[in-house]
Each structure stands twice: as C-alpha cells, then as structure tokens.
C-alpha cells in the first residue's frame, strides 16, 4: 500500500465532516472516491494533501506512519494534488506553467531550451497533444489544461496523484482524453486517487471504489464487481 488512512476524524464546529474514515491506495491502481455533496470527499483529500489537519487518526505512507501538517509535507512525501481549479497561470505558456515555482536555471537565468525539451518529452510520454507548448495556457482547451495540470504534478516524481474532479467541466471528447491520461498514470505504477461525481467516468477508469456517506465509509468495491446501482445505493444510503 502506498497510502493507508485509518480512523481519520475531522470536525468543523458542529459539523462532523469525517468520522473514523479508512482509505487504502495501492501503487498502479486507480481508486475512485465517490459520495454525495457533503459526504466528506473534499475534507479527506485536504487531509491527505496537508491543507487541513485531522482531529485524530493515522496516515501511513509506504508502510511508515507519517504526519502531514502542511502541503509541503505531502509534497515531500510524494503526494501530488491537482485541484479542480487547476491553479494555472493563463498568461504563461505551457512550459512556464509546468515549471511554475520550480524553474530550472543557471544562476537565475532560465534554461528555456532545457525546460522546453523536458516538457515536450513529458507530454509526449503521456500522449498529451498540444500543438505549440510555447502558447499561453489561455489558448488551450479545458482538456488540455487539465492535462497540463496533471503533467505538472508528475514533474515532482510523486508516488500518489490526487485528482479532484478532473472531468467536471469537460465535454465528451476531452473527458476521454483525460481518462486516457489517468490510465497512463496507472501504467506508470502510480497510485491514483480520483474524486468524481461522474459514475460513468469512475466505472470506466477506476480499479476500486471507496464510497463516503455523511463523513463515514459506506462501502469499498472492486470496480469489476460493482455496477452503477450498487454504487448509487451506497452513496444515497438506500438498501439495494
């Protein structure tokens, strides 16, 4: 297991966002985290990404217990999170966005060619097609932006990639592109945690599905054994 979350609880004032939640993420597997609004999905990934601290519970990374108190802790462990808003600078080109905050340089001078080649190789290896990576991100499609954001997460050589609603604002074709990209992350041996509202996408790309309901675990399924009705029943709490 790359990441094991045990008995995580988090309370915001009167709201119990998470209660004794458990989550296992394995290398080379896409785990989907599903649940209705308010089920605790966002809180759970914020705990994993170090954005909020859990009240109690334990997290182990590659078998060792770890403390993730800040986003930086998560990053140095090898946990990369791609948030829904992507956090790209629209005015900068693809290369600059990939290396944002981690620019390669010689004494402060940017190594444009070196970075562009690395970016080109990375995007090619992920089969992400962008005609000109020297164009500002503002000119890209939603799917291409998502791909750039995911590719950027990979530059830090992570072991776990957390994707928050990567297909939420995309059309059919662009969703297919992003799902294909998620499969390639799995082929690279990465653990992938996919948060999604879209059960069709979840069933298409995941290996395992973890359902949260009202801040508690409400079922773990192997995607091959599950069907949409079972998952929906787990999400809504209706007994199938």
């Amino acid at each position: 297991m790359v990441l094991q979350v045990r008995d995580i609880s988090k309370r915001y004032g009167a709201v119990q966002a998470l209660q004794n939640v458990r989550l296992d993420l394995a290398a080379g597997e896409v785990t989907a985290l599903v649940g209705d609004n308010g089920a605790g999905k966002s809180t759970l990934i914020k705990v994993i990404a170090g954005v909020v601290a859990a009240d109690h519970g334990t997290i182990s990374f590659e078998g060792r217990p770890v403390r993730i108190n800040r986003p930086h802790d998560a990053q140095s462990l090898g946990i990369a999170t791609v948030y829904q808003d992507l956090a790209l600078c629209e005015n900068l080109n693809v290369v600059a966005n990939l290396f944002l905050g981690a620019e390669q340089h010689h004494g402060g001078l940017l190594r444009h060619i070196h970075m562009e080649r690395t970016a080109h190789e990375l995007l090619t290896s992920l089969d992400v097609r962008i005609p000109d990576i020297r164009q500002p991100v503002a000119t890209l499609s939603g799917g291409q932006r998502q791909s750039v954001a995911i590719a950027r997460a990979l530059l830090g050589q992570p072991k776990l990639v957390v994707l928050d609603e990567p297909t939420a604002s995309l059309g059919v074709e662009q969703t297919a592109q992003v799902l294909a990209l998620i499969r390639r992350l799995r082929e690279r041996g990465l653990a992938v945690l996919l948060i999604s509202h879209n059960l069709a996408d979840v069933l298409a790309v995941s290996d395992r599905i973890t359902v949260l309901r009202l801040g508690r675990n409400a079922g773990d399924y192997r995607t091959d054994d599950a069907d949409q009705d079972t998952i929906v029943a787990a999400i809504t709490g209706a007994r199938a």
Partner: protein
Amino acid sequence: MSQRLTIGITPVVAGLAVIAVTFGLLNEHFLAPENLTNLMLQMAATGTISLGIVMVLLLGEIDLSAGSVSGLAAVVMTILSVNRHLPVAAAIALALLTGAAIGTLQGVLFTRLGMPSFVVTLAGLIGWQGLLLYLLGRGGTINLPFTGFVAKLSDTWLPAWLSWSIAALAIVAWSAVTALQRRLRETAGLPVTALWRAAAPIAGVAALLAGTIVLLGADRGVPLLLVLFVSMVVALDLGLRHTVIGQRIFAVGGNPEAARRAGINVNAVRVLAFAACATLAAVGGILAASRLAAVNQSSGGSDILLMAIAAAVIGGASLFGGRGRTYAALLGILVIQSITNGMLLLNVDSSIRFMVTAGVLIVAVAIDSLARKGSPGAAR
C-alpha cells in the same frame, strides 16, 4: 509570447504613424531633426518613471506615488551634492537608495497589512510630496551646476561613430544569440520558427536604429539620455523574460493563488516589484532634474505621474496584470510626448492637449479590455 507582442504593439505603432503624419502635415517643424531630438530629451524622464509603472502593472497593481518619489529622489540628490557637497556618484546612489527604500516600505505595507496598493501609494503620493516640500524649505528651488555631471547627462550627444558602433553591436549580438538559439533548439529536437520570422524583427529594428541615427545626426547627434532610457527598457525586458524572478513576476500577475501554491513567495515578488518601480521613479526624477538643471517645488509633480501611467497603458501593458512588456513604456511615452510636443508646436492650448491625451488613453484601455475579453478562457 511573440504573437501577443504583435497584437499588443500593432495599435500603438499605428497610432504613432497617425500622429507623425498628422502633425507632420500640420507643421513642418514637427518631423525636423531638431524637434525630434527635443522629443527624445523630453520623454526620457517620464518614460523611465513609466517603466517602473510597468513593473507594478504586471502584478495588476498600481503605484500612484511614483511621481512624488521621483521628485523627492531628485531633491535628495541635489541637496546632498549641492548643499552638502557630497560626490555626485554618492548623491545619486543615496537618491536611488531612497527610492528603493520607499518602494520596499510601500510594498511591505501592501503585502503585510493587506492595504490596497492604490491606497498605500496614494498616501505616498501626498506624503512624499510633503517631504519634498519640507526638504526644499523656504528657498523652493536649488540649481544644479550646468557643468556638473548631472546636468551634463542631458546635454551629452553621442558622436556618429559611437552611435553606429553601439547600434551595430546590438544588432550583431541579437543576431548571434538568435542564430545560436535556433541551433540549440534544432539540436534539442524542438520546433524552430521560420528563418524570416526570426530575421524580420531584427531587420526592422536595424532599419529603425539606422533611421534614428541618421535623423538625429542631422541635429546634434543621438542624445545620451535616449541611449540610457532605451538601454533600461531593453535590459529590463531581457530580465523579465529570461530570469527566474522575471518569470515569477508574470506568474504572480497572472494568478497569484497558483503562484502561491506552486511555492512562489508571492509577497517577496510583490515587494520587489514595488521597490523596482520606486527605484526607476528615482532614476526618472534624476533625469528630469538633469534636464531642468534644477529641482523645485513642482519636481515630480503636476501631470508627470498621470502621463507615466497613461504611457504604460497606451503602450500595451495590461491594467489587469500578467500581460505587457517594458516596450510599452517606450512606445506609450513616445505617443504622449509626440502629442504634447505637436500640440505645443501648433500653439494649441493645453486644455485641448489634455482632452486629446485622454481620448488616446481611453482607446488604449478599451483595446486592453477587449483583448482580455476576447482571449479564450477569460470567460471562466
């Protein structure tokens, strides 16, 4: 980036052409070498302040204190060198340091206390002007010796051979770097732009430089002030595009939250930009004092600040941050100063001049707003 530059530059270059033709037809002196030389001298000081404004506009911020800071720095320099008999170099260094310190202070107030830059620098506009008046005291005017270094700055003309050598050197260096870049990109297996697209701007600038040298050579030669100003524009542009810190200024201007999450120290970048702006304002103030060979109570006052901001925007720096190049300051001040100069030649009242400048500014901001609306992704 190059495509963006073309879009940004086209309207202002077209505007310059219209201005040149209009005033050229209305008054035969407008395009005469002597007048163009005066134009170059007039624009250097405010242009340098405008260059500083570009630095903060790139962050999507504003610095209203730049005019007052320029005046204050000039007064500091003059008092130190004339009244206190400090060596000129030391006086200039201390004046620049004053600018840098003011910019840093304003940047810190903006980032640490979360005060809007508009308010911090509005206070600066008033306060530094007050300090300037206080320092000048009752006298109100201090003259700089005409033969001194500072006054000489704006009364020095490059001999023809030197102008041609500098221009040739710049073009050769640019061509060589471009050729090297193409070679390196080919070796790295990266796409290379067509040769004519790389060569065309170089040829264009070479022609422009040659034209300028010939034209200004017909009068007193290329003024040192112009060389200083253009050098600053070019150096800052290279710095912004090819250094880590420059890249980060664009990143913070484009999306501060994304920059913060990428581990960039957003506040440090902001303070640096404000310090750079105020330092450039100080340089501009010294150049203005050099032109006048004096400082007085109106140093850095009247419409200097407004013209500097208008120039940056007219030249194509976006008010919304993240977009623009330092050439905006050069082109914008050229537009504004041409209008001013042309209207003075025509004996038009300054009331008309202000209204025309306002019209140009409105057109420039409209273009900026439309470009922003039209860009894909802006709707999100």
